[in-house]
């Protein structure tokens, strides 16, 4: 039982919001775009710390955009979800739905 619990992915509220945004869009997103899309749920000061943790957990991957020879400066970072991230989000959604609807996915036992 403990091993099973250890393997279960954990998602925070902000992480869920980020994964929802990334999964709803087919392409990649910048950090600042996510802040703008979240409508104040994600703060500018913490977004990159959270994205870093999510990358460590394997929910998202990031890459630096190609440097434009005409534009000098620091290239931005683009993020997209991984398969694990999409699965974790789907599991979180179904768990939330089941909890809210009272259907725990169990047909027998627990009365």
């Amino acid at each position, binding site marked *: 039982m403990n091993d099973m619990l250890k393997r279960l992915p954990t998602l925070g509220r902000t992480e869920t919001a980020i994964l929802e945004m990334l999964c709803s869009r087919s392409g990649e997103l910048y950090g600042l775009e996510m802040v703008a899309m979240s409508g104040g749920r994600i703060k500018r000061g913490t977004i990159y710390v959270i994205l870093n*943790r999510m990358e460590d957990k394997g929910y998202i991957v990031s890459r630096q955009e190609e440097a434009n020879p005409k534009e000098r*400066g*620091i290239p931005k970072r683009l993020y997209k979800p991984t398969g694990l991230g999409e699965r974790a989000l789907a599991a979180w959604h179904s768990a939330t739905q089941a909890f809210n609807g009272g259907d725990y996915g169990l047909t027998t036992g627990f009365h």
Partner: protein
Amino acid sequence: MDSLRAFIEWLEQIIKAHGLHRDVWRVTIMGKLMQLMLRQSGWRRATRRRATRPPCSRLYSFFRFVCSRKQFKRVYEPKFADMRSEYFDAIQSQHTWKARWVIMRTRLELLMTVLVSLGLSVIDKAIKIWKIGG
């Protein structure tokens, strides 16, 4: 213009009386007067435009030196990239006050990022130690 000429002649008389070289003083005074008139008409020296370092470049170097490569690339560098793009957009649209505000806000956000990052790493370490102990 006549009054100006009269003023210069009066100055020349004073200079002559004190035994100073006439031409040197004339050039200097005329130069100063021309400068004053041009400044009044809104003229600025071309030499005032100069190349400067991008904003927060010292902070950028500091974080690159202090943080690990992975941490810097993932957490701090995108922050600076966002700040610079916003800053230069504001400068391009001639919103100087907005550009200054972007710099101020970025400094505060960096402080917040450092605090959150440190807090989370301390919690992670504590959990690891607790798991080893348990």
